[in-house]
């Protein structure tokens, strides 16, 4: 069964233009994909359909086979956890612990299960020792991890993150990449919206490119990230590594493969270079 199935989805906000114009896509269980596109392409509007926050005006969205128009947000939220871009907008508890425990209490989990799960989630996201602090006193990076904790704690099958790397330094991005790797190993379906082409090209295997409410391209990461024409249409540039490899090919004519990571690029370039000394 597909994790998500979107069939000819049309949507507009009241009194506005069409924001989504006939989106169709399928996401298999355990897949990881990134949705990219210029500001205003409709990415956030699309993911709000995945837990029923928005309902299609035409077409339909199926979450594990469930039609989002026939199920409540509360029900769908157990399957789909969304981490929105600005964590400040979602916190309301007095302590980090209560913030994380909130959804479990809502789902009526017994107290000992709550205790166990909150503790485990704190440790996975490196938030131990902060359980008694107010969410609003955390640093930007910690707030983002707390927002992710609030979703991971109830163990949804599908995890969606909106611009998770904005304002994050390289070390924090590395931590996020590790968490994503772990979630993949657990068989979770992971979807991110991101402008950070360097981050997603290293961590996601499929890319969906959106432009003006439609899907412009949908394919493997190396195919999309080396396709200058499509990237430009979506107001994106190639990841630095792809850019370097494309330039090398243009100048020297031959490059084996389409590396996405710095390490792989070095391997490919080394094979082109004739043996040289140290300097």
């Amino acid at each position, binding site marked *: 069964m597909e994790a998500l199935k979107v069939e000819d989805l049309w949507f507009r906000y009241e009194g506005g233009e069409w924001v989504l114009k006939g989106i169709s896509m399928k996401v298999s269980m355990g897949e990881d994909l990134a949705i990219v596109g210029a500001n205003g392409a409709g990415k956030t509007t699309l993911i709000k359909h995945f837990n029923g926050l928005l309902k299609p005006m035409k077409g339909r969205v199926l979450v594990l086979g469930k039609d989002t128009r026939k199920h409540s947000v509360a029900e769908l939220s157990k399957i789909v956890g969304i981490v929105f871009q600005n964590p400040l907008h979602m916190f309301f508890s007095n302590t980090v612990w209560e913030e994380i425990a909130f959804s479990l209490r809502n789902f009526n989990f017994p107290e000992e299960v709550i205790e166990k799960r909150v503790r485990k989630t704190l440790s996975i996201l490196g938030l131990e020792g902060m359980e008694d602090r107010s969410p609003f006193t955390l640093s930007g990076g910690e707030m983002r991890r707390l927002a992710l904790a609030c979703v991971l704690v109830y163990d949804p099958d599908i995890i969606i993150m909106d611009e998770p790397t904005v304002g994050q330094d390289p070390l924090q991005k590395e931590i996020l990449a590790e968490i994503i790797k772990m979630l993949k190993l657990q068989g979770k379906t992971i979807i991110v919206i991101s*402008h950070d082409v360097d981050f997603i090209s290293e961590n996601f295997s499929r890319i969906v490119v959106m432009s003006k409410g439609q899907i412009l391209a949908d394919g493997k990461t190396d195919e999309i990230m080396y396709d200058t024409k499509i990237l430009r249409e979506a107001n994106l540039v190639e990841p630095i590594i792809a850019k370097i490899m494309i330039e090398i090919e243009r*100048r020297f004519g031959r490059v084996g493969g389409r590396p996405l990571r710095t390490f792989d690029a070095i391997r490919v370039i*080394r094979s082109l270079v004739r043996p040289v000394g140290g300097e």
Partner: protein
Amino acid sequence: MLAIKTENLSFTYAGSRVPALRNISIEIKEGEFVLIIGPTGCGKSTLVRTFNGLIPHFYRGEMEGRVIVYGVDTRESKVSDLSRYIGMVFQDPENQLVTLTVEQEVAFGPENLGLSKGDIKRRVEYSLRTMKIEHLKFRVPFELSSGEQQKVAVASILSMYPRVLILDEPTAHMDPLSAYEFIQSLKTLNDEGKTIVIVEHRIDFIAPFATKVIVMNNGEVVDEGEPREVFSRGIIERIGLMPPRASIIFKALLKNSAWNKIPLSIEELLDTLSELISY
């Protein structure tokens, strides 16, 4: 000529026990393009807030040492006087935009200086032209894309004719193409003689334009110098940051190369490779 100088500068925010800045002594010369990097929470934003007097005049806390802007001690000067020298652009342009059209926005500063109509008009035209946004003159700032908004924010600072432009993660919310174009426009300003000080994580984009890099960690300046020097020393890797990918690839291929040969941009990397790759 020295634009900004700090002498044994330390600062601790009111209510915090940990100093945000520790004993910082740096010099920024007129005409330089300075890139400030460091992990989240290292004090980058705090440091640049001392350059226009926001610290200590607006943020409460304990400041030691001195900040000298064009020969004037910021402690003995008003923020409004300092704004003649220093213009500041923040991460989120929306917080900086206040009026109904782009033209009014850019005219706002000069109007408050009590300049003549003709002078204001000249300044507005200069600023719009420099940021290449003349076509947005009559648009509503809030309806623009975030890249356009940030250009408007810069134009509205430029119209004050500051000698130094300080930008704190200005591209954080931009899509990659907008960010790339925005940084190009900063390069143009620098070529015209404007001093640029920028806090940014997008090292790959900016490094080729920077004349100086300042590296911060835990409130201290841990390294500074010409970009090639700093990116060859290996200090930034130890605090979890990455040099430009062009530098990483080069260092992997040629381990013992002299620091002044390290490429900062893709073009420079390719020039090096053309000596190595056999046809």
